[in-house]
């Protein structure tokens, strides 16, 4: 009864304006589409996570005793495919990006609302295909589809999985295209490029990669499918083709795709740190342009995935050098965030805890990336757990930490309710501990020589102790991810009503109501302040603190 009373007292907003399944499935409101994405992406996250847990369970003992070798190959392939194409790539742009990009620049919606809805449907079609593929046998090539195994040998459902990635790829092309046009054409009066929130800059840089990179993986998938279906000789050496060409085309997209995943999370961190340090971001222009720098450099380093694939040494040297260059814009970000916190008035709310986690874990992930960029070390650790640990520090330690931080930060705006702060902090702590326990042992495992993708390591039983630690960590991590889902759902009904600006944060999205109305603002806002203007925002007790 009391909850109904509150619901009646609420103002009209995007959530309660219309009801019924049709008002959601046919909506063109970017906020509702963001929620559709949120639900479907969360679903795929738990599917991918389930595969990860099975992988870890198998590796608990040196013998291959839980699943068959074939099943294990399918497990890590489907884990990779689901997590990369259906979680990591769309997660921040399609949920928080969709929700926030128009609001942060003072627009009523994205430039192409119907294309935005179309992108969600494409994502879902891809999702249905990948689910069908999973349930009817799956794929065993690894998410990388390396030829000629994928085109001439395996009997698993390559074409269906490829089609799923192809269709989902178009959904991210449309999202990227929408964001770029929106940022160029829909900014409110006074919202100049140098006043854009850094989250927008990072989404913009991400979108550039999405529209330039994704079509290349699309055509690569088409060529793989054509080779498989019609026995065209494009990548198969038996037919005259060159498997290295496949790897070049594949990584031309799939390396920049890593930056599609991490850049949006970096944008979130750039929003959280100034807010909870009560300080203007240090070096705004450098942080903004470093996003563009990462996007551009990201396209020049793909062949560092191929150092041992038979490339010429000279090419490898060039790609090694270029890979080191990516460290520069990444370090600019890390140093500027740290400098922002210096002498700031820091408070330890949940989003800030995730930001701290991001800083530490991304730094470890980034530095081990430099190990892998150097030719000598790369030869030693290629295809070992060192690589696995490295990219999980970036993908899980970086992307997911940023995403969860952002979800907590903007949850009051999205749902109009506060999440329980105590539980939030506890979950952040559990995630941090669980993550490190899962993946840090893998650095050591890899350095000692445990190969990745092995299902049975009974000839090297000395690796068991580290594997046990990793598996234990993964269960803790799993609990850490379940908790936020539970209390977010709980808070939608029982959480305290959120004020318009619970964190006393800068930015246009906090100047509208929580949750916002359908058109975001009653009147188009006029921007006459700089970004992160925390000097001019009076400090106030934040509600979670008291």
């Amino acid at each position, binding site marked *: 009864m009391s909850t109904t009373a509150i619901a009646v007292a609420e103002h009209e907003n995007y959530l309660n304006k219309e009801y019924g399944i049709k008002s959601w499935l046919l909506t063109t409101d970017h906020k509702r589409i963001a929620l559709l994405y949120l639900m479907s992406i969360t679903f795929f996250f738990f599917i991918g996570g389930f595969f990860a847990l099975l992988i870890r369970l198998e590796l608990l003992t040196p013998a291959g005793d839980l699943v068959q070798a074939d099943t294990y190959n399918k497990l890590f392939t489907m884990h990779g495919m689901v997590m990369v194409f259906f979680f990591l790539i769309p997660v921040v742009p399609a949920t928080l990006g969709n929700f926030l990009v128009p609001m942060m620049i003072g*627009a*009523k*919606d*994205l*430039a*192409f*609302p119907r*294309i935005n809805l179309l992108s969600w449907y494409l994502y879902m079609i891809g999702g249905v295909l990948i689910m069908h593929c999973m349930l009817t046998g799956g794929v065993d090539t690894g998410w990388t589809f390396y030829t000629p195994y994928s085109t001439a040998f395996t009997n698993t459902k390559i074409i269906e999985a490829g089609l799923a990635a192809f269709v989902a790829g178009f959904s991210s*092309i449309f999202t990227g*295209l*929408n964001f*770029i*046009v*929106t940022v*160029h*054409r*829909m900014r409110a009066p006074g919202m100049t490029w140098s006043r854009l929130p850094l989250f927008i800059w990072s989404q913009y840089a991400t979108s550039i990669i999405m*529209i*330039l*990179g*994704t*079509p*290349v993986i*699309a*055509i*690569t998938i*088409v*060529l793989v499918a*054509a080779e498989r279906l*019609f*026995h*065209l*000789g*494009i990548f198969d050496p038996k*037919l*005259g*083709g*060159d498997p290295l*060409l496949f790897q070049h*085309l594949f990584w*031309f997209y799939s390396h920049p795709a890593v930056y599609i995943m991490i850049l949006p999370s970096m944008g979130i961190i750039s929003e959280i740190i100034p807010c909870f340090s009560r300080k203007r971001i240090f070096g705004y222009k450098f942080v903004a342009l470093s996003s563009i720098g990462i996007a551009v450099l990201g396209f020049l380093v793909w062949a560092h995935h191929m150092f041992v694939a038979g490339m010429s040494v000279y090419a490898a040297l060039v790609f090694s050098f270029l890979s080191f260059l990516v460290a520069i814009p990444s370090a600019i970000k890390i140093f500027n965030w740290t400098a922002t916190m210096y002498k700031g008035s820091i408070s330890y709310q949940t989003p800030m805890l995730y930001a701290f986690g991001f800083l530490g874990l991304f730094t470890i992930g980034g530095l081990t990336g430099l190990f892998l960029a150097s030719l000598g070390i790369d030869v030693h650790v290629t295809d070992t757990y060192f690589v696995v640990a490295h990219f999980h520090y970036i993908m899980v330690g970086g992307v997911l930490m940023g995403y969860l931080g952002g979800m907590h930060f903007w949850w009051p705006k999205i749902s109009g309710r506060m999440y329980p702060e105590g539980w939030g902090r506890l979950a952040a702590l559990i995630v941090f501990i669980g993550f490190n326990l899962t993946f840090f042992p893998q650095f050591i495992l890899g350095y000692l020589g445990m190969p990745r993708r092995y299902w049975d390591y009974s000839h090297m039983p000395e690796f068991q102790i580290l594997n046990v630690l990793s598996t234990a960590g993964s269960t803790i991590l799993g609990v850490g991810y379940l908790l936020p889902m539970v209390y977010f759902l709980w808070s939608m009904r029982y959480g305290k009503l959120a004020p318009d600006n619970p964190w006393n944060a800068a930015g246009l999205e906090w100047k509208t109501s929580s949750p916002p109305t359908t*058109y975001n603002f009653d*009147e*188009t806002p006029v921007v006459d302040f700089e970004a992160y203007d925390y000097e001019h925002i009076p400090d106030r007790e934040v509600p979670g603190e008291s």
Partner: protein
Amino acid sequence: MSHSSAATAPNPALRHHFAEMEQQKNAASLGMWLFLVTEIMFFGGMFCAYLIYRLQHFNDFAAASQSLSIKLGATNTAVLITSSLTVVLAVHAARHGKRKLLVLYLLATIVLGCTFLGVKAVEYTDKFKEHHVPGPSFNFAPEYMQGHPEQSPVDMRHAEMFFSLYFVMTGMHALHMIIGVGLFSGLTWLAWKGRYTKDYYTPIEMAGLYWHFVDVVWIYLFPLLYLISRHR
């Protein structure tokens, strides 16, 4: 909020989230250009594969390309360039609000697009008859080599690769042509019903951009596949 400033009633084609028609049109055209950028990258992957293999297996690729009909290819090039002209004229007619002329030029574009596809079908049929379609029945024995033992022999596998890429590249291009013809069919219907006025003809212009792009792809495909190194 624009009610007070706008002297006349807003154009019914103006969508709710735009302040004015100009902003809406600018957004559409930037979006279309960005989409074409993605298309360039899409075709770029194939061009890249083709050029690499052409350099690696130059002799075999050059020999295989001799079997393509320059006559049909050149006809199609002319047809496509003409169709780009009719598209420009259609946009021009739309800009001046001439409905019947617009419909006429759109129909002309559709006819020319279908002509292109028809000629392409003839070419594909020829390739099929000559056993130049990659697969188990593939066979490649160039006529000009018969009785000329001084010519270096052609590696069948690499000739087959040429035809693989030929079919993938022209096939993808033809797919884009089919989509374009479908697009223009819809637009013709809407134009006939008077949907487009001189204040609002953005879809015509956008479809025109797409059509020009598909045309330009062919302008690259034609010399790369048919013309270069034919001087034997």
